[in-house]
């Protein structure tokens, strides 16, 4: 009996949770006349997507977002690997203090330091570039922490063996540590990409042209300018901008959830 109630409640919540997305899909795939009228006989159409695609420079936004997430991820992986290794396996004066200072970024993120980072970017002459959106996130305390924890679990014997064969520090890192941390890299990569794909406030502030705007900002500019209340086109644009992540998620659901889980247990 409780089992049935449990199942019912779980499903009710599940349907409630999927409702917004289901509605967005309804409005996007049907003619505007049916945006608020639910009629199973309503004709299906792709016109809303075509309209949205033409109404705003979405290809450029896609390119910018793609550049952004790739650049941020590449920088984060390299920097976090080097720093994570140094914190995990090297001894030097002030290591623990420095590590605490790094961890501070977990709480005080660049996301809230808008005014000062804007000032810095202006000073560097980087305002309104894709680089400026990503730069504050290149060094990631979360990545450093995650890799440090992972590297600490690698048996020292493996490192010794590699050193016997004459490998230097960087070679040991690359040949021994990095391959063993592959699942962690995957997990971190997924978390990072989805985070920066979705980031909004900082890109909104630091960009003001089509050439540098990522999708999220482009979408906002698109839906807040005079599109009337054409919900069909706005939902189509909304789905478009979320589509790559959403499709990737639906295809690799299990890996996605597991990756988030792995990144979550720190």
């Amino acid at each position, binding site marked *: 009996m*409780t089992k049935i109630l*449990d199942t019912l409640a*779980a499903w009710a*919540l*599940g349907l409630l*949770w*999927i409702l917004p*997305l289901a*509605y*967005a899909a309804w*409005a996007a795939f049907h003619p505007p006349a049916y945006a*608020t009228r639910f009629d199973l006989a309503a004709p299906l159409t792709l016109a809303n997507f075509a309209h949205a695609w033409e109404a705003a420079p979405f290809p450029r936004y896609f390119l910018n977002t793609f550049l952004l997430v790739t650049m941020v991820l590449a920088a984060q992986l390299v*920097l976090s690997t*080097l*720093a994570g290794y*140094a914190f995990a396996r090297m001894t030097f004066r002030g290591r623990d203090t*420095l*590590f605490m200072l*790094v961890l501070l*970024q*977990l*709480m*005080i*993120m660049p*996301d*809230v330091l*808008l005014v*000062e*980072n804007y000032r*810095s970017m202006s000073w560097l002459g980087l305002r309104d570039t894709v680089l400026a959106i990503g*730069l*504050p996130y290149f*060094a990631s305390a979360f990545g450093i922490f995650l890799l440090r*924890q992972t590297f600490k679990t690698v048996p020292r014997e493996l490192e010794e063996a590699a*050193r016997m064969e*004459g*490998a*230097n*520090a*960087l070679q040991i890192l690359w040949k021994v540590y990095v391959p063993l941390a592959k699942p962690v890299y995957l997990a971190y990569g997924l978390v990072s990409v989805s985070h920066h794909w979705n980031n*909004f*406030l900082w890109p909104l*502030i630091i960009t003001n042209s089509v050439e540098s705007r990522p*999708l*999220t900002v482009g*979408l*906002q500019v698109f839906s807040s300018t005079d599109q009337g*209340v054409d919900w069909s086109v*706005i*939902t189509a644009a*909304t789905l478009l*901008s*979320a589509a790559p*992540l959403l499709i990737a*998620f*639906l295809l690799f659901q299990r890996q996605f*959830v597991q990756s*988030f*889980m792995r990144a979550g*247990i720190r």
Partner: protein
Amino acid sequence: MNAAVDTTKPEQRTVLPQAGRARFSSMHALHAWLMLLPAVILLAAFTHYPALSTIWHSFFSTPKGRRPAAFVGWENYALLRDDAVFWQSLWNNLWFALGTIPTSIGVALAMALWINGAMAGRAFLRMAYFTPTVLPMVAVANIWLFFYTPQYGLLAQGLEWVGLPGVNWLGSRETALPAMMVVTIWKESGFFMIFYLAALQTMSPSLREAAMLEGASRWDYFRRVLFPLLMPTTLFVLINALINAFRLVDHIVVMTKGGPDNASMLLLYYIYQVGFAYWDTAYAATLTVVLLAILGCSALIKFRWLDRRTHYQ
């Protein structure tokens, strides 16, 4: 440079003669610093420096035209004290945190327990619960904006269907902030569910069997065994939720712009407005100092708790 020697473990140093040991350990430290340098420089440039310069700039006036910034002492803070909008945004933010965090955590825990059990349609449920997490908040806000639209919106239609009068959810002072809370709960619960799922999967099934043998009811088992065991996860989620409550204002930008009449004004959105709509950077810095203080406090709590759990060595 012989790198093979540099990375020798500290224990092995003891066999080196005194002079060699000193030279060796300074080389070792040099390598460590070289590996840390890029990350440390960027962290300092975009986290530590701006945090400190925010405090510095809060004691100056905003430069206007040819007039440079001048030291004004506590003047900005006096302004802050008398600024009704600031106090409202602070209160709103506290209410927002209070309204979203316990509910999200409760929903997340329920979701995790359901998915962890053998439930019909688990795959679908997991997908449904987790999907909001991968969607951009801006996209989500656009969809919810339509839900809340008077007359045409889904909620309005639903109410009309039941025969109730429509409510202007985003346009009235009473409902704007709660409407934002609902969006946040919907967006974040699935994310927090993941942490609970991870914790639940490390638990042995014999725990439950033992409890059942002792004649414990489901509720007893949850309250006396499961919930205490999940406490570290709950704390972790709590801190994350707290930070997010002060950090995430994307939906405010899209849906209400802090209105009506500042009813949904959150602290970070107010900073954004003061800094980038009114361009009063000094006052925005002063507001940011308050936000940093709040986040700093949660940082302290987190460190104390993390210190107990994972031993830094």
